[in-house]
């Protein structure tokens, strides 16, 4: 009880300053916390946009062209032509990119699968399982995913499996380039597939995402198997993942240089588009951060000055405690505790104000809206900012008084205070 009175009592006419310091801190920290919560929410939105857009990926695609496809061997349907990628990309040309980026090679093509009751158009993707797993999203329903060294093995989405009438361990034929059939054994059934940069959907084929204009399912085999089906190692498309965002422009330049004599190969990047999109966003974040910083500086200076007045007035208590045999640390402890209590109370009130009065969602205007709605969030950084502001106010408030008390003898301190 005595300690509580030592901490909170004896402020006399300076009680107003202590209360004012708490109120100023509460308002200032509320602004800072509110701004930082928006900043943190916006950073999360940016990160999400970056994960979704993947501006670090540069896409290399071959010309999209029509090719002749055979009709089923039984029946009377005529041959037809269907648009597919041409396999124009030589993997050897992409080899130099290995130093600065990861090359995710693909062969994507269409096949007619003929079985007892008819035939089915189906997209077949030759992929490098380990690399593709990192940029596309696959979730397995049953079985296992492909391995790089798999031969004549396939995983496919549930809809395609159902259409083909196969399950784990079953097999189905795929016509190879040499006009022979290759039997693929099903090793896994996919629950969901979200292929990064899939080809356009041009043919009626099983599609887990109805009405999607892009291919959302099909048969996935290892690149080794697809080369056997295709009869050639050239790629239809490839994704070049830069090691960092800053490397993207130079990666694009290098790719353009590599394929400058290949009119059928196209290079597409989202880097510039992404940064145009986030430019205003980052400027707005900068504005909020600036507001936070300026508010922090002003509030810290003002509140610490108010606390300093309180401390200066409590030198009498410090002197009396010292004379009675309290160590310097214990003599100053009530002052530090008062500052901490005032500032902490201000910080808690500030957090409650920011949490209750702040918007649950923050809509960015115009271009920035493309990045989605920002949800202000309270995280470790915001908490750390609150703690740092609170501690700084207390320290800046008490340091001048503490230094003054340390430099002067206790007798001088007592006489200065009229003791």
């Amino acid at each position: 009880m005595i300690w509580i009175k030592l901490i909170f009592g004896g402020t006399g006419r300076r009680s107003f300053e202590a209360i004012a310091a708490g109120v100023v801190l509460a308002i200032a920290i509320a602004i800072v916390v509110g701004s930082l919560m928006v900043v943190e929410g916006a950073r999360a939105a940016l990160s999400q946009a970056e994960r979704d857009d993947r501006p670090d990926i540069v896409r290399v695609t071959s010309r999209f062209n029509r090719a002749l496809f055979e009709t089923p061997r039984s029946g009377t349907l005529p041959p037809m032509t269907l648009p597919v990628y041409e396999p124009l990309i030589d993997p050897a040309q992409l080899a130099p990119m290995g130093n600065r980026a990861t090359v995710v090679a693909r062969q994507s093509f269409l096949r007619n699968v003929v079985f007892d009751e008819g035939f089915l158009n189906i997209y077949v993707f030759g992929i490098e399982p380990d690399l593709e797993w990192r940029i596309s999203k696959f979730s397995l329903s049953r079985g296992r995913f492909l391995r790089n060294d798999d031969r004549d093995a396939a995983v496919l989405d549930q809809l395609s499996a159902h259409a083909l009438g196969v399950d784990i361990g079953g097999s189905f034929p795929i016509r190879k380039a040499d006009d022979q059939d290759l039997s693929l054994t099903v090793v896994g059934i996919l629950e969901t597939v979200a292929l990064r940069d899939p080809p356009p959907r041009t043919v009626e084929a099983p599609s887990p995402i109805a009405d999607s204009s892009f291919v959302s399912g099909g048969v996935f085999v290892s690149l080794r198997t697809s080369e056997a089906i295709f009869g050639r190692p050239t790629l239809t498309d490839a994704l070049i993942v830069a090691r960092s965002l800053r490397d993207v422009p130079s990666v694009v330049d290098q790719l353009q240089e590599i394929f400058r004599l290949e009119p059928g190969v196209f290079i597409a990047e989202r880097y510039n588009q992404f940064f145009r999109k986030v430019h205003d966003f980052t400027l707005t974040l900068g504005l909020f951060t600036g507001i936070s910083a300026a508010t922090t500086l002003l509030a810290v200076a003002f509140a610490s000055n108010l606390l300093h007045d309180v401390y200066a007035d409590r030198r009498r208590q410090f002197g009396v405690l010292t004379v009675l045999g309290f160590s310097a640390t214990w003599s100053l402890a009530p002052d530090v505790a008062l500052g901490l209590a005032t500032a902490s109370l201000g910080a808690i009130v500030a957090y409650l104000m920011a949490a209750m009065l702040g918007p649950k969602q923050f809509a960015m205007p115009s271009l920035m809206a493309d990045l989605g709605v920002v949800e202000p969030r309270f995280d470790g950084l915001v908490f750390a900012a609150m703690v740092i502001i609170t501690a700084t106010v207390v320290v800046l408030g008490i340091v001048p008084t503490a230094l003054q008390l340390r430099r002067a003898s206790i007798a001088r301190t007592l006489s200065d205070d009229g003791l």
Partner: protein
Amino acid sequence: MNQSPFIVLQSVSKAYRRGATIVKALHEVTLEIRKGELVRLYGPSGSGKTTLLNLIAALDYPEQGEITVGDQNVTRLSRADAALYRNERVGIVFQAYNLLPQLTALENVLLPMIPKARLERQRAVRLLESVGLGSRSGHRPTQLSGGEQQRVAIARALANDPDLVLADEPTGNLDDENALMIMDLLCGSCRERGKTLILVTHDRSSVQLADTALELRAGSLTKT
């Protein structure tokens, strides 16, 4: 009364810098006080009385000389050791009482016991009763008269049963009647408990109560 010196000051000098001027507060003061002795220290304003008390209480340091209290050299104690020394061995009574206004009389008496982490509430109550304030232990300083506040300050000075009590003009803010009572109480309490008392005062009523009178003039000591 023990005849061996309890407090020894050997050629103690102290000067203050006041702007560009150096003021010699004490000059080559040599002094011996026996244990249990009641010493009256007087002299004109600015003669160094308070400075001498501050040095003995280790609230300040002398430029030269040695100060010994009991078997402890207190000339250049660290802040921590000085705090411990004051807490265990010295009780101080000020002219302005210096009670903490937010605490009750009882809590003010308990205050010196906090550094020892041993709050002897019964002892504090008995001390307040001994100065005639047993019924007012729950009152705050603002609810007490000047004389009552000084009686609380005396009880506080005796809280840790110190060997030495230093009183700096304890009756300076009191009327004659209260001054006489405080002087009787202070000297009586110290004599009763065998404490050594150094009393800085202009009050003539203490002349009969003190064993020794010391006069300070311009920083130098004259024993009378």
